[in-house]
């Protein structure tokens, strides 16, 4: 077991943990905004962690070709890291403009 495969395991397991947290958040949180909050944050971080893990796994028989493939994977990670929060922002703003009410506890006055 090399240091690269240990690093891969740590990254992929961390990515799986954040995916799990995002899924639990989508299922359990009460309204649109908080669900989107869970989905947007957890999914973008988890996708970047898992892609970084795959890029490190791909480096194992080291050559120029595998380095090139890993660099492309890291470019995908950077793309996801920019686009996923932007998409979440756009969906949230559309919901706010169309007047989706945020959830609140029963019996509490809106401030």
């Amino acid at each position, binding site marked *: 077991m090399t240091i690269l495969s240990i690093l891969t395991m740590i990254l992929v397991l961390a990515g799986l943990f954040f995916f799990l947290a995002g899924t639990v958040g989508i299922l359990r949180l009460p309204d649109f905004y908080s669900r989107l909050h869970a989905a947007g944050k957890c999914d973008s971080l988890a996708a970047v962690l898992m892609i970084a893990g795959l890029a490190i796994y791909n480096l194992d028989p080291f050559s120029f070709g595998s380095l090139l493939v890993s660099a492309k994977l890291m470019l995908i990670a950077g793309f996801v890291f*920019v*686009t996923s929060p*932007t998409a979440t922002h756009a969906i949230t703003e559309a919901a706010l403009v*169309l*007047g989706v009410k945020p959830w609140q506890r029963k019996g509490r006055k809106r401030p």
Partner: protein
Amino acid sequence: MRDIHEHSAGEDLVIKTSVRLLVPFIQLFGLYVIVHGHYSPGGGFQGGVILGASFILLALAYDLKTSQDYMPIWANALLGNLGPVIYIGVGALCAIFGGLFLDYSALDVLIPLGPVEWRSFGIFLVEVGVGLAVMSIMLLLYWNLSSGGALDEGL
């Protein structure tokens, strides 16, 4: 429906900035997909769709006028017609120089590269034509559908 700009913060800085950052990379990736079409996943159609989607993204995040600043209507029409001309022109050149339609190895008499090299290079030429046609027709479809055929104001 309520007034659409009641809660809106006006021009959306986040979306516009990230679109402005991403569009050059999307277009570069579209060209990469077209050029690598004959020995990796991709090809003319896929690369053309990515190129067209980059301009549609500009039109969505800014407005129709901005996307027409980057790709004017006349240039779009020119490229959309140039694509089929490249495709049919390469095919007809092959037929003129003694092969079948789109039999690229016949072009070896024009520039002697060898028949195998010409088969690879001819696919590349045809893919460029397909990519240009798909890009401009996709963009034109979006412009027409979003502005009701007027091509001036839309989403």
